[in-house]
């Protein structure tokens, strides 16, 4: 057998072993064994009078199609599940010359697979437990399927092209959404989306060459096809997840805010005898707490996970001051805020707040705020915030009425109003969304 003939035989055998994805440690011996078979077969045919070219063709034909023998071999080296999925998806077949556009499609699909794979640990690190797990499963499924498509494209698999068009369609849609939903005064250029659109247009102009390239591809069956199509929804899950309630996190219905205000007179060391004062109390009761509210990353920045609570005086109206602007008619007495766990008496917060939850408080509430330590929040606990306020001006002043707002992380806001001698309950504010900067005091 001439070296040229042997090379043709070796290439047939190598294609079979590659199609079966035989482990590298065993592939070389298997190639040697099967090559020996073909060489002996060719020599036998030549001895019977056939020329070498004819003998090589006859030997490879009798040996069996790459897909048939490779598939059978794949079932030997891999599990039944592998054989019925990967083995079917990547079944080898003869292909025509690879059109140039395939390289671009593969690049896009490969980059998408890598980016998706990278996003999985990021999501697991940053998101709440259910969102993290659902996102990871969806991301992993998408990354695996995109990787299979990447490999299938090289082998001229028709399903891989259909799936890649779907992936590129998703990239284009994602690019449009990203562009449209960019914050005001900013421009986001969706590079992947633009490349995907350009590649889709290029593919359409290369349709005939692509059709020839995948002509030998075998059908993969409805069940596998449906499974692949479903994974195209995975990026959508990633988009929707942040807006979905996570069952491991407390919702506004799990928290009750009870307000009370007691008003009276007392002697004050600073302001003199028989001075007006009001004690505003907000009891925040949790029926349940959050599990990893800031994801695993949140464990490293607990201060950012604090809740924020604040109030403003809605009556009497603010008082204009000479320097311009206005001040509330009633002010905090010193740093007069106390935050405690009712059941244990331990301190549960501090005057002022700088956590992310501040962005959810209405911008009319800014200075009279307190932070609530996330580590003190738990199921069946009540956090009591007590403010002591006194009139800003001397002389008899109208008794105050206050609006109180409580923000749990940056997720939901509960708000209520209270006057002297009253008891009331706060209500969730529908559609409250975080704003950019916490507002400053406004009476």
């Amino acid at each position, binding site marked *: 057998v001439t070296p040229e003939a042997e090379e043709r035989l070796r290439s047939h055998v190598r294609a079979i072993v590659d199609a079966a994805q035989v482990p590298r440690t065993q592939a070389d*011996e*298997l190639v*040697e*064994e099967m090559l*020996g078979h073909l060489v002996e*077969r060719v020599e036998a045919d030549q001895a019977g009078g056939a020329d070498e070219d004819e003998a090589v063709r006859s030997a490879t034909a*009798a040996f069996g199609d790459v897909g*048939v*023998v490779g598939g059978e071999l794949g079932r030997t080296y891999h599990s039944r599940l592998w054989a019925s999925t990967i083995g079917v998806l990547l079944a080898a077949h003869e292909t025509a010359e690879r059109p140039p556009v395939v390289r671009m499609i593969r690049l896009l699909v490969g980059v998408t697979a890598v980016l998706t794979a990278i996003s999985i640990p990021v999501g697991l690190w940053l998101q709440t437990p259910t969102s993290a797990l659902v996102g990871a499963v969806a991301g992993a499924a998408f990354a695996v399927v995109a990787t299979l498509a990447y490999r299938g494209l090289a082998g001229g698999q028709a399903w891989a092209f259909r799936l890649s068009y779907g992936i590129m369609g998703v990239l284009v849609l994602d690019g449009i959404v990203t562009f449209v939903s960019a914050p005001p005064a900013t421009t986001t250029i969706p590079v992947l989306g633009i490349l995907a659109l350009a590649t889709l247009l290029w593919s359409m102009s290369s349709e005939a060459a692509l059709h020839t390239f995948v002509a030998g591809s075998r059908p993969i069956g409805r069940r596998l096809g449906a499974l692949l199509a479903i994974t195209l929804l995975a990026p959508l899950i990633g988009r929707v997840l942040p807006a979905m309630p996570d069952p491991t996190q407390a919702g506004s219905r799990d928290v009750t805010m009870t307000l009370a205000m007691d008003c009276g007179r007392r002697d004050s060391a600073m302001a003199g005898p028989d001075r007006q004062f009001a004690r505003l109390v907000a009891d925040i009761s949790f029926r349940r707490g959050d599990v990893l509210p800031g994801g695993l990353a949140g464990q490293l920045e607990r201060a950012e996970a604090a809740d924020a609570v604040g109030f403003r005086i809605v009556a009497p109206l603010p008082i204009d001051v000479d320097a311009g602007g206005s001040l509330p008619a009633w002010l905090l007495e010193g740093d007069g805020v106390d935050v405690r766990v009712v059941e244990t008496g331990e301190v549960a917060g501090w005057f002022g707040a700088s956590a992310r939850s501040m962005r959810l408080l209405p911008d009319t509430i800014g200075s009279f705020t307190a932070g609530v330590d996330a580590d003190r929040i738990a199921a069946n606990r009540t956090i009591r915030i007590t403010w002591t306020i006194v009139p800003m001006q001397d002389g008899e002043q109208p008794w105050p009425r206050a609006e109180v707002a409580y923000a749990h992380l940056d997720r939901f806001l509960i708000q209520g109003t209270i006057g002297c001698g009253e008891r009331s309950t706060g209500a969730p504010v529908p559609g409250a969304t975080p704003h950019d900067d916490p507002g400053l005091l406004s009476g």
Partner: protein
Amino acid sequence: VNAPRLDRGEFGLLLLGLLAERSMYGYELVSELRTRTHEVIDLPEGTVYPALRRLEREGLVAGRWQDVAGAPRRRYYDLTLEGTRSLAAGTTAWRRFAAAADGILGS
């Protein structure tokens, strides 16, 4: 009605039967199978290798390389003790099956 087809288990049983006679290598097994069955059993030749790998993994045959003067070395297969037992059990089961089929189709 389709012609009967050899499944993987039966193919393996035939290979064990041939190897019970003597050690053989892949090409030789295919040639023997074709000759002894008068080409009734004429599978793609390459399918003998997945079958041999399966039998080897199950411990029914053992492969070994042997150098050949003036030709590529060959991988010969021998029946193991477990293979001998499996062949006996398989042969009994096959004969019972064939006899049952003959009871209907006639011998």
